[in-house]
């Protein structure tokens, strides 16, 4: 049975993935071209095709790709979609920055440890990497690859960044799949959720870096990596190696605090009344707050399911501290959220598309 829809209606349903402004201009044309590609001119055959066939997977994928490019707009896109595109690009770079800083952290630790400049990192840090499937070297290398991904994306080498990103997430994916199959994952939901949120989602969102996307501001983003390492990673590592681990929030808590601080630092600019110039950054911060908030909630769920983790990480107050971090994050994000909402209409027009050389 065809479910009451014919081929044209099924294709129109797929086209609903596209933004309204685009459908207004192109939908009828796309439907005509699509049906032309199926019709043979034989009325009987065409009637069967119309009733029983459906758009191919490649056809649907091509529409999804087009939708991603349009919603995460670049040069020449309507302001609303350009704002979303810029915000997603900023959020992706920020998440990749955290990954890259962790990779840099590993790289520096291994270098200093191998030259006996500092003592080897405590066993608790080393064992934080999941093991069993891959030797430690694979995890270290996967960590370093995030540095390559980040730098490639900032420098505009989008294809190289995508290829490297796929390589970077394979070890964790293999570890998860094997753990799932053998039942050895201590927290299957949390493990998969972390992987989707922190690894896979930013890589999928790299679709925002398409041909029409304005290049990232190279200098500030490249400087952000050593700055993050010195201002965040080094103090955290110092606290851990000097036995003050309980002074340091766990990773989700650290993300909440960092995003909250960024929101609070951005508030004066928002309140200075430069409407339209701050909105995209506000939207970026709201997206990052959502990611950090979900990260915090999933990790708290994990701790509640496995109380041993609480004592292993930080002690009995971890749940209370985690909830406080969530509250602070929500309050800070609420301060910039109205500006983020305005970004979709008030921001300056996107730049024209670069001319072909």
């Amino acid at each position, binding site marked *: 049975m065809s479910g009451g829809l014919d081929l044209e209606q099924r294709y129109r349903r797929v086209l609903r993935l596209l933004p309204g402004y*685009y459908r207004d201009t*192109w939908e*009828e*044309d*796309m*439907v*005509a*071209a*699509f*049906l*032309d*590609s199926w019709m043979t001119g034989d009325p009987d055959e065409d009637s069967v095709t119309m009733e029983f066939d459906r758009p191919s997977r*490649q*056809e649907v*994928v*091509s*529409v*999804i*790709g*087009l939708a991603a*490019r349009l919603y995460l707009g670049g040069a*020449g896109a309507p302001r609303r979609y350009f704002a979303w595109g810029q915000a997603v690009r900023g959020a992706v770079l920020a998440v990749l920055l955290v990954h890259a800083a962790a990779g840099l952290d590993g790289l520096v630790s291994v270098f200093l440890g191998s030259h006996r400049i500092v003592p080897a990192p405590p066993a608790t840090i080393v064992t934080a990497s999941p093991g069993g499937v891959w030797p430690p070297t694979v995890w270290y290398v996967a960590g370093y690859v995030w540095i390559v991904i980040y730098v490639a994306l900032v420098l505009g080498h989008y294809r190289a960044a995508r290829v490297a990103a796929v390589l970077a997430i394979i070890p964790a994916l293999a570890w998860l799949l094997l753990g799932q199959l053998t039942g050895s994952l201590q927290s299957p939901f949390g493990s998969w959720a972390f992987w989707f949120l922190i690894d896979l989602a930013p890589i999928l969102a790299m679709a925002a870096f398409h*041909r*029409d996307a304005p290049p990232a501001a190279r200098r500030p983003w490249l400087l952000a990596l050593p700055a993050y390492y010195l201002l965040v990673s080094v103090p955290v590592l110092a606290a851990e190696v000097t036995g003050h681990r309980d002074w340091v929030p766990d990773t989700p808590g650290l993300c909440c605090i960092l995003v909250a601080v960024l929101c609070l630092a951005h508030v004066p600019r928002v309140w200075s009344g430069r409407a339209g110039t701050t909105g995209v950054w506000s939207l970026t911060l709201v997206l990052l707050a959502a990611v950090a908030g979900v990260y915090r909630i999933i990790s708290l769920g994990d701790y509640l399911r496995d109380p041993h983790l609480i004592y292993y990480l930080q002690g009995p107050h971890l749940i209370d501290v985690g909830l406080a971090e969530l509250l602070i994050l929500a309050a800070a994000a609420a301060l910039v959220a109205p500006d983020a909402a305005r970004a979709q209409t008030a921001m300056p027009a996107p730049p024209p*598309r670069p*001319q*072909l050389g």
Partner: protein
Amino acid sequence: MTGQAFFVLTALASGPRHGYGIVREVAELSQGRAQLKIGSLYGVLDRLTADGLIEPDREEARDGRLRRYFRLTQDGRRALAEEAELRAATARVVRTRLGLTGAEAAG
């Protein structure tokens, strides 16, 4: 210029075509190697229109459906000629480096 954009411009070089006409022409030009899906085609058409390389030519209704035809602009013709020259020059270099003569390359 992407491969898809190059093929679409080439398909329009001999005259205006509508969406499916371009898909068919591209498949023929590429000897079946480039199979444009409709979502990809309209992404390319949208971009080429915005870049001023193609423009709408006319609309025709057939079987109750409207088909929009596209044609090359002067800028599009120039961009296509430059790209074709670039690709031909690259092909010449490849042939030279591989030590192929014209006859061997054709064979």
